[in-house]
């Protein structure tokens, strides 16, 4: 009995001890409303203290109450999210900023920002908070303090004509997609073998779609929301598919003086989600509400609806990982850039050497360019000899189809010939880089080879006229005569070989991943366009110069052979 009593007593004591230890924790879990009210009350009290507002390095939340205003940075030309007509501002971001100010009991003093200026303006203390369509990615995490939970989420969508059958990534391969420079999702589009057409501003994309300059365009769904409200636009275009979801975050400066403001905004964001404030604002501005409805359910959960909910990984979303793996020699590249700038004053940027995806694209681009040049030269020579021989034939059934083919190829602009070659190749084989390169080699070889072949045939004709036919004279066999015709047309052959080498960059138009294509892809997600394209020009001029030198040698040999014949 004694033992039983002892056990029971131990269990009771244990339960009591557990209750004593646990109870204070449960009691400390405040609601976000309570925590926010206390934070605001404390800051207001500090602001009211005599001389507090004149202190240097004033806490930013306290300063907001001192000045009775908050300075949100908002966009002015982003339809549905931040627009301005005269003195009237509207949009989801603008109304969110107004709601923040109202909750704090101060006036909003809006400042215009755009994608390039929002972070510098925050760092320069020209604004208190960014509410400007800013995606939260790991790169920006080091520059600003993001507010959690996120106040919106967008994804990149591919938009195109309704009649166009594009449903997923496999349908994108080989097509051109219009994008804006610096868009984080460009690298993903590139990885699915699409070609990019770059634009500086998203605002031009709908116009480019309407006038059919672009068949497909990729941009945030939040951006296209506005255009899909237009009946004419919605009747012609639709969303093909979406990818690369990124949460949008309000953000404050990454400084100790901003921490209380950040905390207040974290709590407000929680409350706005839970109470459907964000949702109401979104509905009023006719922006998508799917994400906000889901978030409302999340922030109503008891484990999230606490003052620590904004740091709970089960409740908040992760930032989009936009960090690209650096190359092992990135430090030396950066040091070289600095040294070059110090030495010449010219800002050199070598993005192709700094990250592994860019380095990989760059290396492959160079190799593919050299393969293309070598392939185009070989194909030109081969087609020149074959078409030259066929056009020199005495059989009309051989000669005339070859001539018709030459005239057709001469009549087709280079871009069209490449597109035809690519269309036929893709009908026969599934899309791949190798198929695109092969199609380009055949197209360039045919275009230039047919012209060179025509020159050989003309030389053959003149040789026959000069020396009489082989049958009549019995002197020169056809094979030897053909060799002399090739030698005689050496200048023309060489000029078309050089032309073929110069034409290889056009292969990028049909998706061949040569250097121009690779560098366009790199500059779509990295900086340094001026340096990149200057290097590209130097590369191709050097390659063509080498081809010219080699062709000069070939011409000398052919002309020497003709002289000794």
């Amino acid at each position, binding site marked *: 009995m004694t033992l039983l009593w002892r056990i029971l007593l131990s269990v009771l004591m244990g339960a009591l001890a557990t209750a004593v230890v646990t109870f204070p924790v449960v009691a400390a879990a405040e609601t976000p409303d309570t925590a926010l009210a206390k934070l605001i009350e404390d800051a207001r009290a500090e602001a009211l203290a005599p001389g507090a507002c004149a202190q240097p390095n004033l806490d930013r939340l306290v300063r907001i109450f001192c000045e009775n205003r908050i300075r949100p940075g908002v966009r002015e030309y982003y339809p549905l999210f931040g627009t301005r007509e005269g003195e009237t501002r509207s949009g989801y971001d603008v109304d969110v900023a107004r709601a923040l100010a109202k909750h704090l009991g101060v006036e909003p003093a809006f400042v215009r920002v755009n994608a390039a200026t929002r972070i510098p303006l925050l760092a320069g203390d020209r604004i208190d908070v960014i509410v400007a369509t800013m995606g939260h990615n790991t790169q920006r995490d080091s520059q600003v303090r993001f507010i959690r939970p996120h106040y919106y989420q967008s994804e990149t969508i591919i938009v195109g004509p309704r009649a166009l059958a594009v449903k997923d990534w496999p349908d994108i391969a080989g097509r051109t997609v219009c994008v804006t420079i610096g868009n984080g999702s460009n690298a993903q589009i590139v990885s699915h073998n699409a070609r990019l057409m770059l634009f500086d501003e998203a605002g031009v994309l709908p116009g480019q779609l309407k006038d059919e*300059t672009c068949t497909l365009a990729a941009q945030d769904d939040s951006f296209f929301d506005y255009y899909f409200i237009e009946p004419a636009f919605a009747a012609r275009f639709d969303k093909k598919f979406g990818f690369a979801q990124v949460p949008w975050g309000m953000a404050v400066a990454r400084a100790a003086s901003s921490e209380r403001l950040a905390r207040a905004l974290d709590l407000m964001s929680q409350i706005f989600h839970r109470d459907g404030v964000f949702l109401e604002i979104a509905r009023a501005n006719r922006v998508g509400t799917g994400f906000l409805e889901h978030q409302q359910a999340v922030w109503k959960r008891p484990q999230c609806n606490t003052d620590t909910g904004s740091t709970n990984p089960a409740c908040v979303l992760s930032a989009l990982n936009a960090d690209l793996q650096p190359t092992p020699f990135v430090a030396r590249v950066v040091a070289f850039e600095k040294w070059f700038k110090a030495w010449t004053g010219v800002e050199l940027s070598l993005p192709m050497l700094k990250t592994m995806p860019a380095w990989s694209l760059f290396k492959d681009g160079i190799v593919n360019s050299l393969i293309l040049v070598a392939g185009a030269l070989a194909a030109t020579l081969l087609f020149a000899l074959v078409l030259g021989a066929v056009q020199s034939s005495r059989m009309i059934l051989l000669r005339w189809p070859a001539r018709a083919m030459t005239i*057709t190829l001469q009549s087709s*602009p280079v871009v069209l010939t490449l*597109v035809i070659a690519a269309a036929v190749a893709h009908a026969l084989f599934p899309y791949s880089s190798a198929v695109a390169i092969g199609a380009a080699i055949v197209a360039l070889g045919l275009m230039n080879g047919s012209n060179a072949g025509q020159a050989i045939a003309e030389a053959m004709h003149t040789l026959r006229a000069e020396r009489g036919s082989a049958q009549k004279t019995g002197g020169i066999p056809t094979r030897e005569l053909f060799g002399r015709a090739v030698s005689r047309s050496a200048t023309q052959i060489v000029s078309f070989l050089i032309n073929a080498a110069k034409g290889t*960059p*056009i292969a990028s*138009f049909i998706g061949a991943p040569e250097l121009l294509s690779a560098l366009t892809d790199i500059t779509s997600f990295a900086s340094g366009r001026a340096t990149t394209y200057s290097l*590209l020009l130097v590369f191709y*001029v050097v390659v063509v110069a080498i081809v010219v030198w080699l062709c000069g040698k070939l011409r000398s040999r052919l002309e020497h052979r003709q002289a000794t014949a």
Partner: protein
Amino acid sequence: MMTKQFSAEFFPELLAGMLVNFEIAVIALVIGLALGALLALMRLGGGILGALATSLIGLMRAAPTFVVMFFLLNIIPRDATLFGVGVAPSGIMTVALSLVPYSASYVADNGAEALKQLRAGSPLGALQFLPNVTRAFFVLVMSSSAGAAIGVTEGIAVILREAVLLPSLGDKLVLFAIGILFFGITLQAGFALMRLLQRYLGRRAVRDEPAI
């Protein structure tokens, strides 16, 4: 029958697009004539300027049009100004400028030859420059199709955006054949014009030759 598959606006748009090809070629040729003539004179003058002109012509010959086009497109900021005036070239101007290295080097080569003929007392030999320039003009018209890659609505761009909406390879090939026909007629007409010009100059040369 076959053209029923194409949109009603296709043919007017194709013709309008081909006019853009001609516009680009005219701009490239005019600038090329001015620059090429200057380089030809410099080269014939000899000395350091002559060597400089020869090097420049060599560089321009080696520069691929397509790469020059992307170089110009990316190196000139969209908001570039000179004395407060916007100097960023339009798409059409960018394509035309990318063709200038070809046209200028061609004009310099043929211009230098024409000047030599003129100095040798053969004005008709020098006049062979005209058919050569006509040939260059039509090469420029065909090469201006590169503009399709940067969103310039020229003839090939019109054909390609129509092709995107066609479901089968057969339909696309019919469309491409129409494109070749339109460009081919233009090119062959140009070459016919060039041959007529050459024959006319040849006849004049024979007629003006002093009897021995």
